[in-house]
Structures are given as C-alpha cells and as structure tokens.
C-alpha cells in the first residue's frame, strides 16, 4: 500500500527571528504614513497656492504656533486643568452613583430617568445658561465637562458591578460577608475591567466637554484660542491649537490605558483599545 514507507527525517524549517524592522513596524509604520501625509499636505498647499485662511500649510501652522508658544502653552494648561478636574469629578460621582443604581431597584427606578434626562440636554445649549447661573469662572466649564463625560462612566460602572458571576456572590454570602465586604472585595474588583472601558470613553469625552465649555465662556484655553484666532483670521494658529488638543486627547487616553495595565492586569482588554 505504502511503497517506501520509511520517512526520511526532513530538516526542520529554519525559523528566523523576524527582522527588527518587521517586529517594530507597529510603531514606525503609522509614523511614516503620517509623515507622508503631512508632506503631501505641504506640497499640495504650495503647488496649488491654497490661501492660508482656507487650509494653511503644516509649515505655516508650525511657524505661527511656535511664534506664540508661551501663550499657546498657557492656554493648553488651562484646558488641561479643566479636563482633569472635570474627569476626576466624573469619576468621583459616577462610581458611587453606579453603586447606588445597582444596589436597589427602587433607587435605580428613581435615578435612572433623571440620568437619561441629563443626557438628552444639548450641552452646548446648556453652557451659556450655566455661565449665567454659576458665574463667568472655572466652575461652569467643569460642570459642562462633567456632564459630557460622566454618563458612559456611570453606565459602564453599573454594567461592571452587575457582571459579577452569581456564584461568586453566593460564595460571599456563604462566608457571611457583609454588603460592604461584598462590594469592596468582590463586586468592585470584578467590575474594574469594564469600569476602565468607561474611563477611556470618559477621558476622551472630557476633552470634548472642556472645549465646548471654552467656546461658550472662557478667557483662556485651547477652545478659546481657536475661537479668538479664527475671529482674527489667524487660521494657522487655530489649526495649531486643534492639533495640540488632539495630541492632549491621545496622551490622556494612553495614560488611562497604561494605568489599566498596571491596576487591572487580568483584563482581557489589555493590548487592545
């Protein structure tokens, strides 16, 4: 049936370690593509003579922004403060709120419709009213940032708290754990991976919220800089502020991802978004 069944030992295929440029391509490939895009943008602006108020060239954006670097940094610092305070307030309010929501059906029925209501309010429309109510200071900006950022955080915290396997809660009850122990030792740690997906959404939204607030009422901040720069047709500076704002969003997001990797190493989400 099988002529010559003696199998010759075939040499194992040589497994070479992938070359360095291949292993690190995840890192440098996007950078190369981005550089090429910026280059194409620059060339297009020069070749076709696009006016700066329509689309400034990258070199013009860099030039104008660099020239005003101290002011730009001050504005960026103001926005950063608003984003961080708004974000931290969101965390401080969302977690206890989620615990309350998931602890009893009555509380959930009482609070949930109000939460939905706060989400249906257009925040941009609310901003000028809040300024009148709370005064032209940092407070309305923080409140707007909070209102934009906190909702997905509450939802993910609540989802996380409800995702605990019922057997684990039974185990807790079998050990006669108190409600507080159940929350701190079982529910909250179990919720962490899902809480962090909410934190990632919240930090991104906090940047949006801060800028919205600055559009309406501010004397500093990158949002304010964009509004005032465009008002004076300093379009390249507005672009510079926009790019800086995006950069801030990316960095803050990555910080949350890094904190997650340290605090929640068991999360399946690690390594992905």
């Amino acid at each position, binding site marked *: 049936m099988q002529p010559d069944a003696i199998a010759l030992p075939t040499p194992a295929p040589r497994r070479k370690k992938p070359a360095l440029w291949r292993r690190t391509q995840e890192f440098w490939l996007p950078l190369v593509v981005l550089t090429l895009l910026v280059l194409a943008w620059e060339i297009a602006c020069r070749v076709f003579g696009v006016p700066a108020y329509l689309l400034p060239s990258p070199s013009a954006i860099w030039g104008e922004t660099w020239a005003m670097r101290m002011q730009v940094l001050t504005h960026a610092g103001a926005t950063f403060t608003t984003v961080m305070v708004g974000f931290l307030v969101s965390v401080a309010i969302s977690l206890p709120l989620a615990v309350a929501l998931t602890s009893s059906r009555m509380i959930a029925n009482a609070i949930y419709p109000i939460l939905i209501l706060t989400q249906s309010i257009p925040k941009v429309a609310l901003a000028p009213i809040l300024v009148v109510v709370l005064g032209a200071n940092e407070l309305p900006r923080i409140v707007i940032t909070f209102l934009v950022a906190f909702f997905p955080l509450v939802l993910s915290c609540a989802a996380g708290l409800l995702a605990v396997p019922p*057997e684990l809660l*039974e*185990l807790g009850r*079998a*050990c006669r754990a108190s409600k507080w122990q159940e929350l701190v030792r079982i529910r909250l740690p179990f919720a962490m991976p899902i809480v962090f997906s909410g934190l990632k959404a919240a930090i991104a939204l906090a940047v949006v919220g801060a800028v919205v607030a600055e559009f309406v009422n501010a004397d500093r901040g990158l949002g304010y800089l964009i509004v005032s720069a465009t008002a004076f047709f300093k379009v390249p500076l507005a672009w510079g502020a926009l790019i800086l704002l995006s950069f801030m969003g990316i960095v803050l997001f990555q910080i949350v991802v890094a904190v997650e990797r340290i605090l929640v*190493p*068991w999360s399946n989400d690690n390594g992905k978004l």
Partner: protein
Amino acid sequence: MITIDRASKVFLTRDGEDIVALKDASLTIGDCEFIALVGPSGCGKSTLLRLIGGLLPLSGGTITMDGAKVTGPREDTGIVFQAPTLLPWATIKDNVLFPLSLMGKLQPDSKAKAGQLLEMVGLGGFEQKYPRELSGGMQQRAAICRALLHDPSVLLMDEPFGALDALTREEMTLELLRIWTERPKTIVFVTHSISEAVLLADRVVVMSPRPGQIVEIIDVPLSRPRSFDQEGSDEFQRCARRIRELIFGRRDARAA
C-alpha cells in the same frame, strides 16, 4: 447529621406566578456520608443543595444540622460550583484563602494549610499563579481547595465537574474520592451523570421535576475504595439501571 423534613421551596416569578421548585423533600444524611442528587433539569436538586447550605430561605418544612435549624449560611459548610469562579485578580493561594479572609478568620498557619491542600490536589508549585494561567480542571481543583480550607464538616457540590471535559472529569472523580478518604466529611453532590453518581455516592437521591421532588433513594452497595473497574460490576449496573428507570420510565431504560 443533616435532617431534611418535608422541605419545600416556592419561587415567585416576576409575573407574580408561583413556581414550586421543591416539594416535601425528606432525607436524613449521616455524618461523613456521600450523597448524590440526580435528576433532570428543573428537578430542584440545586435548590435542595442551596437550602441545605442556608443560601435560600425555606418556604416550608425544616432542615436541621446537628440538631440546630438551618436559617442562614453556616461557617462549617463549603461550596463548590459548576464554574470555578476564582477571583481573576488573586493568586491561586489567595483564592484558596479568600473565604477565610472574608470571614476574618485568617490564622498564622492558614497559608501553610492552603499550601498543603494545593499540594494534595496536585497544584503544588502553582500557588503564585493566576487563575487564567491554569486549565479548567486545575481551576476547579483550586476551587475545591477553597471550599475545604476552613475544614467544613459539610461539602456542598453543585455539578462541580459539569464544565470539564470527559477525561478530566474521570480524573477529578477519583481525585474527589481520594480527598474524601483523606478528609472524611459529609458531601452532597449534585450531578446530571448517573454513572458519576453511582461511582461516588453511598446513596443516590433520584429526583423528578414539576414539582421538584425526591422519587427514590437508592443505596449503592459497591465496596470502597471505588474505582472505574467497578463500572462493569452487576451492582453498579443494577443501580444505574434503576436510576435510569426512575428518570426515563421503564421502557426507555430497557431500550437504552
């Protein structure tokens, strides 16, 4: 000794309907006896297990453990579920120590005891690993250690090997018998598997659904220590056939 006297459990559904999960179950379980609860889904075997553990309040009847009425969870009871349900953020050793730490009863020698237990089930050297680094069978062994650490007099097991593959399941069955021999205690074991029930138990409690109730209690006269060799014996076959008859009715049992 556990005495169950006409225990009943009625659940109220969301629509306000009553569902009788268990009706007038009576059973006396001796110390260090191995009892298996067998029956189709919805026969109330898990409910009975939770009633014994004090995790559910009774709707009727009484359950007493060593003369005292069971009104809530007792500390001398250990529970193993179908899923290992280990804490993903804690090491295997910390998982085993978890119930004791919840009860605030960590002793200086608890860690050493946990190490011994893990050694006994073949998990020595895995103390500092995390659950995700272990196979399903190993996780379930750790979960059994977790239930055994405070040396409960009663071990309640709710289909503990139900989520394991067939080979691991046989291995774990022998493992459990060995643990039980080394540390004798009362075990109430819920299972879907008739052969598992016969091989493990001193007595098999056969239950039927709608409403969940005990149909018959079958003595298993097999000698101990048990092994899979006994599956071919007449006594084993007679017990298994009787259980099958009770669950599927006579005709189906003969056909099977």
